[in-house]
């Protein structure tokens, strides 16, 4: 498969004043796949993520989407290009009901609903798909973490993306909830959406991703299938400490 990758990141670097958060990172995301990014705290995962999603531009480097340079696109232009994202710290529209949260998303993006009725109908579909249908009249601030994480995904899905970025969508979930979330992500992927996710939970990354990128201190240290990455000596060292370093 030598198709052009859906997302191609070329040598991006981000400096915040003196601190280099991400240094010369390049990778690409294959269309239709689930790609994951892992790394210890402070590795620059979220910074990389935010640069790709247009939250802030990289200091150096370029980002391409289907061959088109999107490095300087603003965050609000992304849904028009069929790209959607979620936030690590959930940003539900607190004082709106779950249904209204999703209706708002249906009004925007490349397939924006033309009428209130169309927006509501589509929102209902998304809610059914994400399993929030029964809770649609609850204020989103009154829901627990797992449902708010689901709502984040529902809001992103309502813009009908072809490329979905998930930022630590399973952090703070218990094993059963994680399992349910994994199943939902699989379903989304099966419906034809390419997914890129950041995750701390190894179980999720191993069972979901076809390709994994590992960041450490702002640099890419490994990439490949989950098995390849997990058997990489450097990755093991970063995650578990040195194998033979008994004096450490």
């Amino acid at each position, binding site marked *: 498969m030598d198709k052009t990758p859906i997302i191609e990141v070329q040598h991006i670097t981000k400096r915040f004043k003196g601190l280099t958060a991400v240094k010369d990172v390049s990778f690409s995301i294959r269309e239709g796949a689930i790609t994951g990014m892992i790394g210890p705290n402070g590795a620059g995962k979220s910074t990389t993520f935010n640069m790709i*999603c247009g*939250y802030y531009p990289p200091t150096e480097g370029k980002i391409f989407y289907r061959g088109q340079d999107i490095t300087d696109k*603003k*965050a*609000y*232009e*992304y*849904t*028009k290009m069929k790209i*959607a*994202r*979620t*936030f690590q710290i959930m*940003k*539900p*529209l*607190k*004082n*709106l009901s779950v249904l*209204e949260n999703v*209706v*708002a*998303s249906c*009004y*925007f*993006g490349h397939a*924006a609903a033309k009428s*209130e*009725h169309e927006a*509501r*109908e589509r929102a*209902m579909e998304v809610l059914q798909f994400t399993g929030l249908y029964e809770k649609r*009249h609850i204020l989103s601030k009154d829901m627990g973490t797992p449902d708010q994480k689901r709502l984040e995904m529902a*809001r*992103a899905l*309502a*813009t009908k993306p072809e490329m979905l970025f998930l930022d630590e969508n399973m952090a703070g979930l218990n094993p059963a909830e994680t399992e349910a979330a994994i199943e939902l992500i699989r379903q989304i992927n099966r419906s034809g959406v390419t997914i890129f996710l950041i995750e701390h939970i190894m179980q999720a990354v191993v069972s979901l991703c076809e390709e994994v990128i590992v960041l450490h201190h702002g640099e890419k240290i490994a990439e490949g299938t989950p098995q390849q990455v997990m058997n990489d000596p450097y990755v093991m060292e970063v995650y578990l400490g040195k194998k033979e370093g008994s004096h450490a």
Partner: protein
Amino acid sequence: MNENIKAVRVYRRNLTVVLGLILLIFCLIPVFVKSPYILNVFILVFYMSTLSMAWNLLGGMTGQNSLGHAAYMGLGAYVSCLFITKAHVNPWVSAVLGMVVVGLVAGIIFFPCFILRGPYFTLVSIAFGEALRQFIINSTFFGRASGIGLPFKRGDSFLDFRFAGKEPYYYIGLVMVILIYLLMKKIERSRMGYALRTIREDEDAAAAIGINPIRYKIMAVVVSAMVAALVGFFYASYTRYIDPELMVQAKSTESVLPAVVGGAAYVEGPLVGGLIMIPLSEFLRAKYSAILPGINMLLYAVALLAVIRFRPTGILGWYMHSGLKKAIDTKILKKPPVEVLEAVELDKHRGKEA
């Protein structure tokens, strides 16, 4: 399913009857109340509630707190008065011209400060109001501190928006309130309404679903300023005289109060707040200001503090979750459950498509 449709129909009918009765009462008030003072209070309620609805579009729906709405109102009044007195344009046309000018001014002034986030908008809105007032006080063209009077020719004329009695102003004010309320309701349910509320909750979340926050905030400011300008025109035509005092900071604050007391999260908030707070303020002024000057303001402040302390979401914020609403809904309006309403609405649209 048929039962559901019937239930929804009954509910709709009951709602229409109740709203119609309220409207009828307002229409009949001038027939029975002849005191110009009482009518004046009602007219005050109408235009202050409209101004507060304009504020609420920004403050309540978009989360951008403006403290300069008296300035939009004042500028609207000035621009339309100048068109009337200097260019002899028909008042109704002047009203439209005033709204357009104020909308443009607001859009141009506030474009730069929406690039910044946070309280800058509020600060600029205060500065804008005061700067405008100072400019008008020092401008001969605007009549300096002595203001502008609208010439009062003999005879009532709808075309010139000029009446000797208060009743016509009462009805025109009532129509204005209703039209602006319908406009706000329309905005709330539209794409723009969802965009504004999303921005209020979180700008990053708004951008993530494809809303350009700056664009929608500008739209809100322009619409809000234009409605305020319309109120200014109404005020000028009603009092027949305007001066720069119209734009003092306290007036801007007054435009905020009905919305906050009534419930800023609701389009109806300013109406409820206006109906309660403005007559209260007038009553206190009439009753107590002769006894001890200023005590009316003191009592007003206490009433306001009480609402904010005990009902921070406003009167409607309390009412919407109260047993009273539940009782009214089930006993008088016979409101069916939300699920039934929803199902019937969806079915109706499906029927149309088929």
